[in-house]
């Protein structure tokens, strides 16, 4: 693995903290988009060139860097919210927990039974750290848009893990995963619009009225 790829992964980890520590939704979306673009570049650095790879890189950068962020930004504009005001987990605690989970990710990665050529790489801990940051956002924020951002962050973490397998992964699987993601975000965008229209709020903690008493 080249040192450039490692540096990009470190950048991804830093972007996690940026998302965890900000209340501005538009900034979060752009940070996740940037992360997506970085991740799109990564396969090109790790694996030898092939047309299959080129296609994956281009489509990932397009979807993660442009299409999905555009959809979400659009939703933010329509719902007229800029900030996540009172999260369940505050921004400073989020950062502290994020740091804790990132360091734990390194410990977990050391414990995982990996193939010998993958042991010691930065890929696995970065993947776990991004995944857990995504979980943290999902758990700590109220707004439905923040939930989408957490979901994207989690997906990025899973994608990093997939880097290890990229040359073994057929193009159809990649395309399918991307399509899933796109449709997922699309549906969430629609749901968000409906929630904000019906309840004039995007606070998902108000949605608990459906639970069984």
């Amino acid at each position, binding site marked *: 693995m080249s040192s450039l790829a490692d540096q990009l992964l470190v950048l991804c980890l830093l972007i996690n903290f940026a998302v965890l520590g900000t209340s501005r939704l538009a900034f979060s979306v752009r940070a996740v988009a940037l992360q997506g673009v970085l991740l799109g570049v990564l396969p090109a650095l790790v694996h030898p060139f092939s047309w299959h790879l080129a296609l994956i890189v281009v489509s990932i950068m397009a979807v993660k860097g442009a299409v999905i962020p555009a959809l979400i930004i659009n939703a933010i504009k329509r719902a007229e919210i800029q900030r996540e005001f009172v999260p369940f987990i505050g921004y400073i605690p989020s950062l502290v927990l994020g740091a804790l989970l990132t360091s734990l990710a390194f410990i*977990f990665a050391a414990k995982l039974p990996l193939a010998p050529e993958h042991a010691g790489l930065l890929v696995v801990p970065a993947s776990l750290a991004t995944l857990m940051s995504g979980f943290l956002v999902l758990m700590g*924020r109220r707004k439905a848009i923040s939930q989408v951002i957490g979901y994207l962050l989690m997906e990025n973490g899973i994608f990093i893990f997939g880097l290890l397998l990229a040359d073994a992964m057929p193009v159809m699987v990649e395309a399918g995963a991307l399509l899933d993601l796109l449709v997922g975000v699309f549906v969430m965008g629609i749901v968000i619009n409906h929630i904000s229209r019906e309840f004039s709020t995007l606070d*998902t903690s108000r949605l608990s009225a459906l639970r069984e008493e």
Partner: protein
Amino acid sequence: MLRQGSLGQRVATAGALLASLMALPAISYMLTAGLRARYLIEWNLPFGSCELALDPLTLIFLIPIFLVFAAGSLYACGYWPASSKPASEPPLTFFYGLLAAAMAMVVVSRNGALLVMSWEVMALSGYFLMSAEHTDPEVGKAGLVYLVASHLGAASLLVLFSLLAGATGSFLFPAAGSLHVSSSLAAILFFAALLGFGSKAGIMPLHIWLPSAHANAPSHVSAILSGVMLKMGIYGILRVITFFPERPLWWGELLVVAGLVSALMGICIASAQKDIKRLLAYSSIENLGLITAGIGAALYGEATGSSRLAYLGMAGALFHILNHGMFKPLLFFGAGSVMHATGTREMDRMGGLSSRMPWSTLLSLAGAVAICGLPPFNGFASEFLLYLGFFGEARSSQPLLALGAPVLALVGGVAVISLVKLFGITFLGAPRSEGAAHSHESPASMLVPMGVLAGLSLVGGIFPQLFLSLVNPVVGALALGAPAGYAAPVRPIALTAAGAALPLLAGAIFLVLKRRELASPRATGPTWGCGYLAPAPRIQYTASSFGQLMGSLSTPLIRSRTSRGTVAGVAPVEASFRYQPEETLLGKVAMPALRGAATVSAFIRRLQHGEVQIYMLYIFATLFVLLLSVR
């Protein structure tokens, strides 16, 4: 007859009648001709092939299913018509059919997984049927208890069939007598079957769900729940018993004791009820207890080598299954007609219905006589076989089982008290309330099914050989120590003679008394006027006063909670008295235990939070623990 129903109800009823008309002759033919059939359905289930089979044991249980289903569907057209119950009629009609189909599936399936699935469909359709009036909090509570009990029973069945699959290697039922397992595993299997199937059959003390469930359901639903669904539990026990090549003696002893205890306690509690349908529900516990005791006696006879007892116990039990599937629906239909006419379930508010509803009265009387085990109805024939079986043991080397005969006699006596109370308070005397005074006869769609069932009960009493010819092949196929050609020690013609003689004797006595009455001077007054100058309907015997002696004897089982105002002075002010029978086992043991379980499990309910974020936390915590446990 079908006029009152909606189109859906009419189609459903016509379908039910057609199905029964086709099925019942076929079943009778297959039983008497000794035919069997097997079907293999191509179905890619992970539980092995899906096998259905018709053997004598299955066929005998199909008879009440088809009989009561058709009768109940027809009855529903008059009792629960779409015109007066537009909201609850469609689901009720749908689940009525589903319940019958699921029950038929339970008895024909030869695969444990398929049986459990059909069992669940049956239990759930039963739940939706009985909670038709779910807005009533009492119905909701009864439904909840039913659902919990049903799931506990199903859990026991899962244990049973998983162990069975572990022992045989597949979910297919082992062939009769081919399951060779260690005696401890056999005991566990037997207990699992007894818990799982016995809770559905309402064997005490697994009966706690039964009375309120059957009392709160619409009457045609109570009829099928009580007349048929309870028998599914008996079917399951019998089916599991046939797997084993030999059955230890204590199985029979346990079943005899459990059956006799349920019969006696059930009927004692029934005698103190004031709700007409609760009384009938407790009487179902009694009848199922008699059936269980008969099966136990057959097992006992098999283990001790007494083919006489084995035959009489099993034939009596199976015959009683058929009979109870006729007269209990008949009585529930009668109760439904009464409720339809008066709008109440409390017997203390009825009375004097015989003049306004002559046909319902006559048919209910037939049902009441049948369930008391009196000739000339079928209850007499089957209970007589059980009496004979127990009584014959007096001459055996260990006459302990002969003690069952006096218990049966006691049960029969208390049953007469209970049913005389039910019939007398409801139909005789003067009306006790406005509703009773303005009652009306039921439509033909309700009377015809009752008439058919009453006619069958009469046929079964006068020509028991007809029904015995259906029962005998089953006894032979079960081969519980009774050889196939074993004949009853009593000739059926004797039962016919007894069935004919008793009504003749009663008729003769009636005529003599009538003549004597005509000869003496007559005075007319209201019934039970007791010579008062201005008798009011309220001074009649009530259900509680009629049952007070019996009630005072059974206080350990059932206690009446009474509340009364004080009556003092020469001209006392208006005072009231009310009472509510309360079953001790239910009120003092079962309900506190359930409440305790609810308190203990309250923290699990807190997990069901409703917050998306908390659910994410659960997922995250799971992931975290999994990652931690990697080594």
